[in-house]
């Protein structure tokens, strides 16, 4: 028992060390980073964070990121809900093939879609708008959302649907007022996962935006200048990207394990 606890604590220390180091760097000036090697910042400073919050071309990238991430989350959950219900409750012509096709999109490397996306969204005039990235991220988030929701919906007994029909509920009313509240934890977890996978993605987000909607992940490449790397600023921007996820995870902590298992445990 004691060995087990020791092993666990050791693992968490190793897990947190790189993150600690990033936070530590974000509180140092570049002189201190490149000067003597210290485990704790000598004179902690918020200068790097002040720089980011004082410069619209920095902090607006956070707003841009949040914009397409939220758009994508809303879109993915909204279209995935009825589809997941259909997969869970009915058999229909081509259902297995359709599910497999959706799955392949979750599994297809974004790099494959890079060039066509760029040209396609330029052609339809969506390039450099939040919609371009939000729609592009649907490629992997919609299948994922269908998949997780299907697991959660299958956990709800079918008798509930039948009882509601006998009580005279029409399908849309039943779905919106009875069923959706029943699986709200599943919807919460799904939204969390969509948020997460849209938030962490760089390749598509970077390619489909330029100046107007540049996301934070792309802005971070700016810290390389002629004078070398601005390590402190890079670390501060990195620390700020970790905050939304860490807040969100607290809310879904009791369901997150089930969500990762695609609702199938």
């Amino acid at each position, binding site marked *: 028992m004691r060995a*087990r606890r020791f*092993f666990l604590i050791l693992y*968490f220390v190793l*897990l947190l*060390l*790189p993150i600690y*180091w*990033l936070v530590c*760097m974000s509180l140092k000036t570049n002189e201190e980073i490149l000067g003597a090697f210290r*485990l704790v910042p000598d004179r902690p400073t918020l200068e790097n964070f002040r720089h980011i919050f004082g410069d619209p071309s920095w902090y607006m990238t956070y707003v841009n990121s949040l914009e397409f991430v939220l758009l994508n989350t809303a879109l993915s959950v*909204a279209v*995935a809900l009825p*589809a997941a219900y259909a*997969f869970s409750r009915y*058999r*229909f*012509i081509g*259902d297995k093939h*359709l*599910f497999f096709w*959706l*799955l*392949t999109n979750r*599994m297809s*490397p974004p*790099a*494959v*879609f*890079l*060039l*066509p*996306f760029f*040209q*396609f969204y330029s052609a339809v005039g969506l390039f450099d708008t939040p919609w371009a990235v939000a*729609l592009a991220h*649907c*490629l992997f988030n919609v*299948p994922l959302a*269908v998949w997780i929701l299907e697991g959660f919906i299958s956990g709800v007994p079918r008798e509930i649907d039948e009882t509601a029909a006998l009580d005279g509920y029409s399908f849309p009313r039943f779905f919106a007022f009875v069923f959706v509240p029943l699986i709200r934890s599943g919807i919460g977890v799904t939204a969390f996962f969509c948020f*997460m996978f849209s938030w*962490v993605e*760089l*390749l598509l987000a970077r390619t489909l935006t330029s100046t107007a909607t540049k996301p*934070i*992940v792309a802005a971070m490449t700016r810290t390389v200048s002629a004078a070398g790397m601005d*390590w402190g600023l*890079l670390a501060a921007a*990195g620390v700020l*990207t*970790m905050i939304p*996820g*860490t807040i969100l*995870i607290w809310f879904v*902590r*009791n369901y997150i394990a*089930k969500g990762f*298992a*695609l609702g*199938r*445990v």
Partner: protein
Amino acid sequence: MEPRPVDNRAWGLVLPVVLIVSFSAIIPLMTVVNYSVQDILGPTQRVFVGTDWFHDVLKDEDLHGAFWRQLLFSGVVLAVEIPLGLAIALAVPRSGRWVSLCLVLLGIPLLIPWNVVGTIWQIFARADIGLGGYAIAGLMGVDYNYASNPLDAWLTVVVMDVWHWTPLVVLLCYAGLRAIPDAFYQAAAIDGASSWSVFRFIQLPKLRRVLIIAVLLRLMDSFMIYTEPFVLTGGGPGNTTTFLSQYLTRLAVGQFDVGPAAAFSIVYFLIILLLSFVFYTVLTRVGRGGEA
């Protein structure tokens, strides 16, 4: 359980998904197919070249290198992450006040943008300013430098991936472990079973399903890894950490070799399709054979 009823009106419910995924998958894929058989000389000038690009790409030495590296990387990463994740999941307490903290901590690496994961390790593993690199180079007296030594670069990329994705395996296994009813453990205790036999005959069989999900998800995702090594090593030194996605991105966006890039995209996509098919078949078979 009685089978689900057949009702083709269900297509109406899946239609929005079909439309939105078609919009972001099929139309772009058509473009790729289009490019893979043509040589684009100018905005109005294009020549049909048949399967030339496919021949070129499949004979490319760099691609072969990237492919074998990719296989090796996915193999190594799976061999480390699955046993490690399982061991940690077994050590996480089943209940109590520490559970929430453990789960939140496990979730953190998964929620960091992938380029920031690269940045974290780029800083952490540097021998001059990084804690990890400093510790290895300074304390053990090894000449460690992930930017110039291929072995060190590989080691750092693997350790980074283990750090990043082992929590996913832990969370999956933990979800599976929590689904085992207490009665199983009580029965084992009455029989005087050792903790090894509890693991071997109760926990491991019950975890079969989540373990398969874990292995296959990690296989897929490690097969498309791009951002983290891109930030950390840029595929170098030389080409030693260039994996398939990186190779493709360089071809498509870096050199703008649209034809070969499109041809390779299709080959890459087919590999993934094959993997997905195996994944899906195994998963549905387990779903049918396994207990509810």
